[in-house]
């Protein structure tokens, strides 16, 4: 599962800042879940979320660092993670949707 996730998230690495060897990543919201639920990226990576559900979702970090507006179907949101850490987030509309970005 994890290797599949990494293969999925390594796209567009060439666009990232070379110094941090960042890996830009994509997370989708589908069937009321984040997928993948847990990913690890390098500092400086930009994560893109895309909502595939007909119901809006948000991306809201537990510590308030990032929070998207309501994303309608096919809307996207991006956040760049500069500092290492474990970032837990939820959909504020459906708080059972929980996921984590690990930056290291």
């Amino acid at each position, binding site marked *: 599962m994890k290797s599949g996730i990494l293969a999925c998230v390594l796209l567009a690495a060439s666009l990232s800042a070379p110094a941090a060897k960042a890996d830009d990543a994509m997370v989708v919201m589908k069937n*009321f879940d984040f997928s993948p639920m847990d990913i690890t990226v390098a500092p400086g990576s930009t994560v893109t979320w895309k909502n595939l559900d007909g*119901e809006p979702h948000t991306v809201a970090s537990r510590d308030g660092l990032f929070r998207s507006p309501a994303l309608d179907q096919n809307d996207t949101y991006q956040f760049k993670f500069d500092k290492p850490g474990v970032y837990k987030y939820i959909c*504020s*509309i459906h708080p*059972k949707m929980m996921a984590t970005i690990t930056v290291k």
Partner: protein
Amino acid sequence: MTDATNRRDALKCLGVGAGTLFTLRGGVFSAFDLAEAQGDMGTPLFLQISDTHIGFNKDANPDVVGTLNRTIDMVNAMPKRPGLVLHTGDVSHLSKASEFDTANQLLSRLKVSELHVVPGEHDVTDGPGAEFFARFGKPSNNRGYYSFDSHGVHFVALVNVMNVKPNGLGGLGDDQMAWLKDDLAGRSASQPVVVFAHMPLWTIYEPWGWGTGEGDEIAGLLRRFGSVTVLNGHIHQIVQKVEGNILFHTARSTAYPQPQAGSGPGPGPLLVPADQLPGMLGVTTAVARKKKLSLTDATLA
């Protein structure tokens, strides 16, 4: 479809035998005398509209403005209109200013004297609900929860979408619970109480968050009253329960239906054939009649 046709359809919908009638049993209803004396028998005490989701534009209903307009036409065509309309939230789909502005413009066509609105989770996706409260915050001094009396009935507006529990159930939070206890304390048990909020105040289906964390505690506060009606939206379909003197009832949306509890991956918009959609959208009307509060659900079909 012409206005005249709409009006005829509306009258047909609201006629005897339309919808489902729920009647409270037991309790003390003396305060309803006031409501009954105020007009002819059958004048609605209030009307509930819910989940207008202005801004939604997907296949389940590409014209939510149109269906809200038809709903408003139906209400305005009622032979005896209520003075109050309660909107139980999800006014907007994505909390956008433009969506609220459109909704406000449409709702202003309602020929009623008072509109009371509580937020749904779609109205506060920014967190504090800035756009919602800028328009609807005044009666509650921007808290969202407040109470008022009308025709002898005590109405309580609650907000259960801004302290949502980690398991997805709605929540009031400590401050609002304390306020609610205080608001109900010392009130005569013979006064009818109507409580309205967006998410169901009793657990309908926990895996989808269809309930409120403090639901049991809230029911405990209401149990001593002779007539209690608890109204919600959120699930876009009618589900009701009677527990002692408390009638719990969820309203239809004016925008789109949702699946029955547990059917499919989650509570998203339900796509139905276009000719079935009007029968799944509508409003709830409450009438004080023969010392009882009756709810009638009319559809746009």
